[in-house]
């Protein structure tokens, strides 16, 4: 079965990562699983490409990482939101709501 895919706009993955980390710190695998579960598998994140996004976000100071122990006693790198990341999340949420409202209005008008 071939899945029809529509790429989402730039920055959406960052918003989802920030939102996922707002609850608790997580490793990369946990972030992908949480996004898949929350979207009921309708959103697809390419697993490998999550990591450059995480590293870029850490570089920008939105998240920070530290090594810890995973649920199966393996050493894993956990990411958590910084205060700058929290502000970024609020701004991005507001931005997303504005865009989605605007697009909905346009679609309803035509």
């Amino acid at each position: 079965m071939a899945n029809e895919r529509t790429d989402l706009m730039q920055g959406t993955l960052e918003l989802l990562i920030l939102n996922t980390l707002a609850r608790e710190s997580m490793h990369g695998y946990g972030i992908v699983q949480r996004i898949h579960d929350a979207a009921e598998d309708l959103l697809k994140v390419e697993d490998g490409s999550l990591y450059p996004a995480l590293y870029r976000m850490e570089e920008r100071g939105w998240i920070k990482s530290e090594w810890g122990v995973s649920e199966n006693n393996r050493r894993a790198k956990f990411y958590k939101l910084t205060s700058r990341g929290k502000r970024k999340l609020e701004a991005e949420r507001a931005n997303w709501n504005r865009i989605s409202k605007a697009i909905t209005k346009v679609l309803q008008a035509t």
Partner: protein
Amino acid sequence: MRIAIVNLLRRTHRKKTAFEVDEELQFHIEMLERKYAQQGMSDAHAKSAALRRFGNFERVKKQCVDISRRNSLLRRILKISLILIALTGLAIHTLSLDYRVARIGSVLIIIAVSGRLLLYVRGLSPWIFLPGTQTTLSVVSDTPKDAART
């Protein structure tokens, strides 16, 4: 001597970064393998399905190491030093009444700007210009049954 120490530190840092990135990515693949094995796949199938779902391991690793290198402590110290050199040069250049001393200020500014440019160029990696290397997030119209079946 100092250059040799800086090079050694840089090489050690890069190796450590590469090792940590490798460990982090391997963890992800192992978690995927474990998930597929729990779904009833054989070890070999679980491994290949995990690798397929993860994507190009070496490319992802290189991207992460490059971003880490861009963000290293040594680099930050260098950037701050270059700013200080530029400010010192600017102060000497504007405050000095002697032409020769003012020229020293200009040379300091040139050194700082060149150093900053060099850092910027070294921080650029070819992969950011290549197509298909961006982070991908997409909406799937049909719920995927299993990564192994795709």
